[in-house]
């Protein structure tokens, strides 16, 4: 509890509530054990039930829902009734933003809170965009991967606007933590949905450079590897022929540490028809010198290295290897059909 809420006067002793008979929780046909938990909470909920059942849409009822939410922000019915009251009273929703911000500073992972926030923002319309973006930014200061806040932010951008600085904001978050998958996801969200950027094709080059830089700092970071793959999503030809991609693989393989994602990307390249350079073959060879593998197929060798380097997922890499031959078989089948 906050210090300002410490000196709580029981509702039963507040004159403005004297006309209300509290309603205890009905726990169904089975007699309930006497309730021993926080009396204050119990009392608040008993009065809440009374106003809820009477459908009393008043200022004091609104105040009561604030108290009930402070005790337990997870109670869905209380929130729902609060909105009914706000609508009935035609209340100033800017106060409501403050109410939510105060709550979020204590617990930002509550579904009801975010749902309520969106309801308020939607009512306020585009004037709310800036404050909503700022609100989520503040949440990210403490929890940069907060799923609710990200979902809210995306909704704000798409419905209220404020795209202008979003790519720069992603830069900033990734500077703080390059492993932040939520920020990588947001980056993809921006480049694919920002109405002023013109889509992936237009921005691919600069994004590829950015991503490669990020990968080279921390090659064990799965997010940028997937992001890089996403940049070529609908353009396999560019993926296979862009020398930046294969050079990246070579660089990471040559360093000999954290090679799993580089090998995986190389495998994707090979499966899509990429012809490996001698440098790449040598780098691969030097990763497992002892095996002196008989398998002449480079893709199969990549799979073998992955089986050794990533034993937890050995079955996945074995499956990748076994589907290499079925790729060939598919090819043969297609030949016979055409």
């Amino acid at each position, binding site marked *: 509890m906050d210090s300002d809420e410490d000196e709580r006067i029981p509702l039963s002793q507040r004159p403005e509530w004297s006309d209300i008979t509290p309603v205890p*929780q*009905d*726990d*169904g*046909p*089975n007699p*309930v*054990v*006497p*309730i*021993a*938990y*926080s009396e204050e*909470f*119990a009392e608040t*909920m008993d009065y809440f*039930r009374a106003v*809820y*059942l009477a459908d009393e849409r008043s200022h004091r009822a609104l105040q009561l829902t604030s108290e009930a939410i402070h005790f*337990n922000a*997870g*109670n*869905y*019915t209380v929130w*729902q*009734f609060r*909105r009914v009251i706000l609508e009935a009273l035609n209340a100033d929703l800017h106060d409501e933003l403050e109410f939510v911000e105060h709550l979020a500073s204590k617990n930002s992972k509550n579904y009801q809170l975010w*749902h309520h926030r*969106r*309801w308020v923002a939607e009512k306020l319309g585009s004037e709310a965009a800036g404050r909503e973006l700022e609100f989520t930014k503040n949440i990210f200061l403490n929890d940069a*991967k907060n*799923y609710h806040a*990200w*979902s809210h932010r*995306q*909704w704000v951008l798409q419905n209220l606007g404020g795209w202008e600085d979003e790519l720069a904001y992603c830069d900033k978050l990734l500077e703080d933590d390059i*492993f*932040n*998958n*939520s920020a990588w*996801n*947001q980056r*993809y*969200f921006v480049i*694919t*949905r920002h109405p002023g950027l013109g889509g992936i094709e237009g921005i691919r080059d600069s994004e590829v450079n950015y991503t490669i830089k990020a990968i080279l700092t921390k090659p064990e970071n*799965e*997010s940028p590897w*997937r*992001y890089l*793959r*996403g940049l070529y*999503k609908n353009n396999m030809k560019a993926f296979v022929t862009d020398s930046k991609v294969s050079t990246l693989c070579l660089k990471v393989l040559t360093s000999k540490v954290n090679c799993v994602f580089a090998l995986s990307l190389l495998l994707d390249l090979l499966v899509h028809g990429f012809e490996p350079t001698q440098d790449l073959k040598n780098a691969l060879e030097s990763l497992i010198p002892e095996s002196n593998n008989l398998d002449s197929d480079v893709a199969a060798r990549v799979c073998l290295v992955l089986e050794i380097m990533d034993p*937890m*997922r050995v*079955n*996945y890499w074995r*499956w990748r290897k076994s589907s290499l031959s079925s790729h060939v078989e598919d090819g043969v089948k297609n030949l016979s059909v055409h």
Partner: protein
Amino acid sequence: MGQLAAEKHTKYILQIEKKKDDIESALTEHLRINGAYWGLTTLDILGNLKAVEQEAVISWVMSCQHESGGFGGNIGHDPHLLYTLSAIQILSLFNKTQILNIPKVSTYISTLQNKDGSFSGDKWGEIDTRFSYLAICSLSLLNSLDKINVEKAVEYIISCKNLDGGFGCTPGAESHSGQIFCCVGALAITGCLHYVDKDLLGWWLCERQVKSGGLNGRPEKLPDVCYSWWVLSSLIMIDRVDWIDKEKLVKFILECQDIENGGISDRPDDAVDVFHTYFGVAGLSLLEYPGLKAIDPAYALPVDVINRLFLK
């Protein structure tokens, strides 16, 4: 590590039902019906559903129903899809869905579908692929999928697919194991798994296994027992479960048990709760741990319950 403390877990669950006087139970009053589903399903998987008073549970569940046809989290609470599915699941466990006014419940659910195929959780309109799953699973258990536009519902779910093969809560939202379970589950129930990029998603899901053997929900997050369910059931539905190290995962779940008082926690040495107890036991069931009933990965109910519903 050792073995599953099945008896202790049964005792733990039965004891929660009686303990309505502590603060934890007050805070969860509004979602008691979810808690009841987690507890009862755990008991059933452990083979101990008979230990509860069936009549009392059923009449309590029915008194959580709202006049609209939907269910609230407890008596006198507002209806929501989250609670409606739990109610239907509990009735399914006891083979009692026939006591429902099925047209009424299914109408309540179908009115929550939006034009784009998505679902709101309640009349306030929040949209999330979780709600698509809740609606589709509920209606399927009631044999009433024809009440909604399935094609549109599927279309919306697919629009939430990401570059990593996973799914988020809305189009463009980050992939998250919990959301992936909901989307893959809904697609499995509607016979639309061919829209899933199984190999890509399977790889992302098996990358969720960390050194301790546990699974996380997103990259760089801590492992947590509840993801044993979400990741594992998704992998099973897309037929890629062999891509993780199952033995290590079993070991991780068992390490999260409270051997003395029963219950399972999110990570070793944390406090137990009914939510993680359910996900731990259900995860072990998916991993074919001996002595447990098999659970259906899409409906999150024991396989014999599902067979009883659909094979009669």
